[in-house]
């Protein structure tokens, strides 16, 4: 492996905490989030030749995480599998961990995020959680910037409604 690729790999490792945060916002599930990050990291390593050094690694990785989640959501729909957040905590092996997961997932913000339409949730996750600029977020999602801002505006409005003015 070339040293540039090695560098990218260690940059990916350094990005793991942010990828986990993004995936949590995106999936609304602790266990799903780490699964998705793992899938995304594996994909990123396989496609490292597609990454252009000098461009933003975070946007590239976020888009891979997001695509991994879309693939998963699609295949769940295809399988007729209902998205059932409440059941998930019970499947986690360790009780203390399960309890921690369930507690977090029950949080108002998490549950409000889960209720957003996918395209609004991903816009909110990239801009409001990850702090990407509109241009970067639009690129990561592969949409025009106007589309990004209108999804973001609608998503935020819905969140503010659900969270009672976000007070």
């Amino acid at each position, binding site marked *: 492996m070339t040293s540039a690729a090695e560098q990218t790999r260690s940059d990916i490792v350094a990005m793991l905490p942010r990828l986990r945060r993004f995936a949590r916002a995106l999936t609304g599930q602790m266990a799903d989030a*780490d699964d998705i990050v793992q899938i995304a990291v594996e994909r990123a390593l396989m496609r490292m030749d597609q990454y252009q050094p000098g461009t933003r690694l975070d946007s590239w990785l976020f888009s891979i995480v997001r695509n991994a989640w879309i693939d998963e959501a699609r295949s769940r729909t295809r*399988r007729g599998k209902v998205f059932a957040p409440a059941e998930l905590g019970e499947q986690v092996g360790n009780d203390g961990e399960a309890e921690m997961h369930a507690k977090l997932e029950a949080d108002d913000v998490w549950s409000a995020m889960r209720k957003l339409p996918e395209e609004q949730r991903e816009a909110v996750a990239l801009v409001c959680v990850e702090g990407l600029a509109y241009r970067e977020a639009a690129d990561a999602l592969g949409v025009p910037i106007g589309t990004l801002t209108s999804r973001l505006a609608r998503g935020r409005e819905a*969140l503010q409604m659900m969270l009672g003015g976000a007070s």
Partner: protein
Amino acid sequence: MSVDDERLMAFADGELSGTERAEVEAALAEDASLREKLAAHQRLRTRLSGAFDGALSEPVPASLLSAAEKPRTAEVVNLADRRMARWSVREWGAMAASVVLGLFVGVGVMSAQAPLMSPSPSGLVARGALADALETQLASDEAGAVRIGLSFRDTDGRYCRTFDLTDGGTAGLACREGDAWNVAMTTAGAGGGEVRQAAASEQILNAVNAMIVGEPLDATSEAQARDAGWE
């Protein structure tokens, strides 16, 4: 001038500069309701940070670190790429619910009490509790060390069954050859939640789809096939 919601949002997100920014600032100075809207944006950001920033300070799980540090290796030995019609969602669901995924390595499977699989000239063969379960257990039976998923006949006329190890280990597929159950494939993965499990199910299901003739056995034909010794 009036500031619409999207422009105020762009201001809150630091997207405006120069004249645009100055215009919004001027409007904010005069308009208390606009200031309140801006404050709501900021509160929302704070709440989102509070909800998700924990990921930044938590230790990254070892499974993720190793995924990022090791080259990916093939996890699944797939028997064939042929695809046939998928079966019903109900049956899939029964199996998906039963599949638990783990790491198929020597430690996990081979050394736990009696070995559950061992190599033979014809490939990996089920042993011990796994062989017993494949031979006698029905999908509806309460799972011991092994859970049985789907049973079906493959293109060679053999009976095949999907299984998983209840201690969070391997999931796989075995077919009866002579008196033994040959383990045709196993899935591996370092623990994980539902997505990984579902991915494993899907890998096994793809293999099943490639091998199956007709439909999976229903409960009655499953019991009959067992009683007839899978002949």
